[in-house]
């Protein structure tokens, strides 16, 4: 069965949901077909995916030096 084409604008709207698996199987299929032929949308998809990966990396957000120690002190001296 032919896949109904989808516009770039529609694809952008759903990029985030696509990454999270928060879309229907039918839409996923249409988007996947679009990514195969559209370099721009693929670039947006990969860039967004990179951002998500980047944020998920524990090294991006670190607690300040001594944070844990000060927290410990706070708990025990209140």
């Amino acid at each position, binding site marked *: 069965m032919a896949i109904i084409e989808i516009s770039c*604008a529609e694809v*952008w*709207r759903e*990029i*985030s*949901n696509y*990454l*999270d698996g*928060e879309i229907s199987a039918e839409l996923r299929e249409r988007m996947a077909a679009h990514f195969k032929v559209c*370099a*721009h949308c*693929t*670039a*947006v998809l*990969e*860039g*967004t995916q*990179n*951002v*998500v*990966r*980047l*944020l*998920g*990396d*524990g*090294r*991006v*957000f*670190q*607690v*300040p030096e001594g*944070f*844990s120690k*000060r*927290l*410990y002190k*706070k*708990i*025990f001296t*209140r």
Partner: protein
Amino acid sequence: MTELRIPASEAGLIERARRGDREAFYELLRPCERMVYATALSVLKNPADAEEVSQEAVLKAFTGLKRFRADARFSTWLVQITYNEAIMRLRKARAHLYESLDERPEGGDGNLSPRDFADWQPIPSELLEKEEIRQAVHDAINSLSPAYREVLVLRDLQHLSIKETMTILGVSETSVKTRLHRARLQLRDALAPGLDGCWVRGGPYRKVRAW
């Protein structure tokens, strides 16, 4: 079979902490420290304020532990308390400037066009060892509007589910998804030039097409 939501050790620690065992509470807390701090920072932006609020939130959790119900994860409960504390601090500090949560930018129908289409290579892992890169990511996150930043931090930094994020922020599923979507695309726009160009390849940023 009922799903066991809390690992036995965590349940044991909670029980001990409820009886006032501070060591047990601290042990319970350790794996959540980063989450607590990142949550406070996402609201307040300022590291010193974020640490102070983290401490207050943790104390509040300790004294309020009997109200903790086992149908939530301890970490999510703690993040919720931290978020509320941080919002309260923000309200107090900027009472006259504060925009209510309902007035914060949402608007539109979820349309947000990516600004450019540079094609990204996977980010080399060692890049994150560089302080300047981490700083750039922090700056980009801080440049987002609060509503977007908070969702982003809960979902992509702390890997909370959509449902947990809805509960903590008190917003609808659609709001979580729309805000996350915009936050991610804005962050991509903010970071793409550095990551695609000078940081990764040492060359200038290459725009594929300006549309």
